[in-house]
């Protein structure tokens, strides 16, 4: 059994953890057409964002240790309920699907607002959960903005790129190991707090057959814009300051020059130096 990173002297009761997850296309099952070098559309399935699974795993570790209550929330189309059910199968206690046409086209700001409102409604404005966990980024959008956006909307502290999470012995706060460009930092603070969890934080546990069967029949409430008391102007496309103007495929690689080796390294060296020295566009 791998070592779990926490030390608890006193029992902490009633700790509440919210985990926000997103259903994304499985980028590992995306294949390239060997002939055209472009994306093949077949067989791409939807999975829970891998970073979100890391966040869920952190929550479940704490649930195992402290009997914390873990709630999973997802904003998405009705199909996202599958990801929520999968989280329940892995051990989460309850789940909410936030879904409505009004949320369609939301960018990270509108999404952050919607999730923040949901957290307020699910827990009560003055009773935000101790921990609100997000995956560091979604593998389709790759922005890493929603977690920080929610922390701003709720006006709650933020810790990003968490690799390990401990609860302080007296239960008053946390100690988190976070990852930065130049190394890692141990950060301490109090609750409530929003955290974004990075990859390699932990091996996400599997859903057992028993867990999957139990989760199958759980009723997952669906919350729409009225249920979360959201202002229409801040939702969906209307509430999204960024607009996607165009989507293109990256340039496809094609065959370049192929030369036989004749003992003369100059052309090769020139090309190498040119490629290394080039610093992109200006």
């Amino acid at each position, binding site marked *: *059994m*791998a070592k779990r990173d926490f030390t608890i002297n006193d029992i902490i009761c009633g700790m509440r953890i919210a985990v926000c997850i997103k259903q994304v296309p499985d980028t*590992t*099952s995306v*294949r390239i*057409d*060997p*002939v*055209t070098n472009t994306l*093949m559309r*077949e*067989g791409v*399935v939807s999975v829970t964002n891998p970073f979100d699974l890391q966040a869920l*795993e952190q929550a479940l570790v704490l649930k195992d240790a402290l009997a914390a209550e873990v709630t999973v929330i997802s904003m998405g189309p009705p199909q996202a309920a599958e990801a929520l059910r999968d989280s329940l199968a892995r051990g989460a206690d309850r789940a909410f699907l936030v879904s409505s046409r009004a949320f369609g086209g939301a960018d990270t700001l509108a999404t952050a607002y919607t999730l923040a409102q949901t957290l307020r409604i699910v827990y009560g404005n003055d009773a935000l959960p101790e921990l609100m966990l997000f995956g560091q980024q979604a593998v389709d959008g790759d922005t890493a903005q929603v977690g920080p956006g929610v922390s701003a909307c709720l006006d709650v502290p933020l810790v990003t790129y968490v690799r390990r999470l401990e609860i302080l012995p007296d239960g008053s706060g946390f100690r988190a190991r976070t990852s930065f460009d130049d190394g890692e930092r141990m950060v301490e603070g109090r609750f409530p707090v929003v955290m974004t969890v990075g990859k390699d934080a*932990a*091996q*996400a*546990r*599997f859903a*057992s*057959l*028993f867990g*999957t*069967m139990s989760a*199958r029949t759980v009723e997952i409430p669906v919350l729409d814009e009225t249920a979360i008391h959201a202002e229409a102007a801040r939702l969906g496309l209307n509430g999204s300051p960024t607009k996607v103007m165009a989507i293109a495929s990256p340039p496809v690689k094609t065959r370049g020059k192929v030369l036989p080796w004749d003992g003369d390294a100059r052309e090769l060296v020139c090309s190498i130096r040119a490629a290394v020295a080039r610093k992109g566009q200006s």
Partner: protein
Amino acid sequence: MIETDVLIVGAGPAGLAAAITLRRRGFAGRVVVLEKSRRIGDHVLSGAVIDPSGFNGLLTDEELRGLPVGARVSRESFRFLLGRRISVRIPWVPPMMRAKGFPVGSLADVTRYLAKIAERLGAEIYTGFAVTELVMHDGVVVGARTGTKGIDAQGRHKSNYLASEEIKAKTTILAEGGAGILTDRLVADLGLCGHRPQAYALGIRELIELPHPVEGSAGTIMHTFGYPVDARTYGGGFVYHVSDRRVAVGYAIGLDYHDATLDPHELFRRYKATSAVAAHVSGGRVVAYGAKLIPEGGFYAMPRPYAPGVLIVGDGAGLLDGLRIKGVHLALQSGVAAAQAILVGGADVGARYQELLQQTPGYSEVRRVRNVHGGFTYHAIAGVLMSGLAWATFGRLPWWMVGKNRRDAETLRPCRCRDSSASALPASALSPDRLTDVYLSGTRHEENQPCHLHVLDSSLCAACAEKYDSPCTRFCPAEVYRRESGALSLDFSNCLHCKTCSDKCPCGNIRWTFPEGGDGPRYT
């Protein structure tokens, strides 16, 4: 404690047909289907042209109308290939081979459709769970166990180790497909084997996308025999236009072949390069690839399809029309029969299942062509003639050709000439090399897990290299086995779960076991 009334192992056509029938006809108990692939249909592969009689008594008219197939057979032809460029069209399609009006499409899609119906009717289907063991008590199958997850390559528990789970079932239906591990073990342990050991053909299939849609081509099908196999090897191919733009091309080769240097994938590539096939696919490129075993020992190789507490349906029961090489409709009918037997209830569910199975129209066909394969073991022409004779006489002739009793693994002859470096065809968009084909199968495995292919005694591999030139490096359609400077190395993550290696290794030295649930090909 997980308990169910009926446990169905395998969510293929046979298993789902049983689930649908049980629920539709008012079965009051719990029906659980466990499937090892990540998603329904991922491990389902066929051409396919489906004999629609399989849906009789299974689907409603409305459900039939919604079947996700691209076309119905509109034009069919038979060709005998004499060589790469020359082929002869058989002017008359034998009546039993005619498929006009049959649905043509992806069996994986049809399976997903069946799964939706089963779930709607209340069956519980769980994917990503490999059932690795049957639980027996006093000679009765009382349930099964799922495989573990989260074991690293050294066999140690990872932090997310998931233990095997037991599920108790009053009746278990094995719907594992051809060469199923549990089925083979059960048949061996309880002596359920047929008159002769099961024999298999390796079916290789690609989906080819044409540069532009060819209007009206959907529904055109062609079956061929002859080149590229020699007269002593059982093989035949097909070309099915599943839509105006996509063509399924496949080749099946009997694994009772003798030539140790034979490379089925290479044969398949040569097949595609023939003028007869090229006419259908020129300019196209391959978008999907897969390989599977087809049980073709025929009637006499069928095991007794039941034991106390367990029923065997589909390919696992050896149900294949050996003349038409069609098994989907038989799988569906067997699933329905199994469900019917359970619905009647009582103590002798197994025997009742066998009775009901024998009454299905499909079964009589299998019986009718029971001596077909035997003819082919001698010579292709003899095989063709005998097939016709067998069919015409309702199987009474040729009674002397029951077929040899040898296993596929025993038929290889030692290599006389070491021509294994015979030039492979150059790779191209229409003819990818094996590794690219593996990529197009979508197969993925958890990298950090023990190798699921067990080489029982590696000291035998050196002798095999001498005698047979390591045929596993050729007969595996997924390039799992490679010989590097004398030693055999395995790339298990390429595996397509076809189990050709288990079947054909001349030393019986390879045992296929279950990798982590959810792993394997992702067929479309």
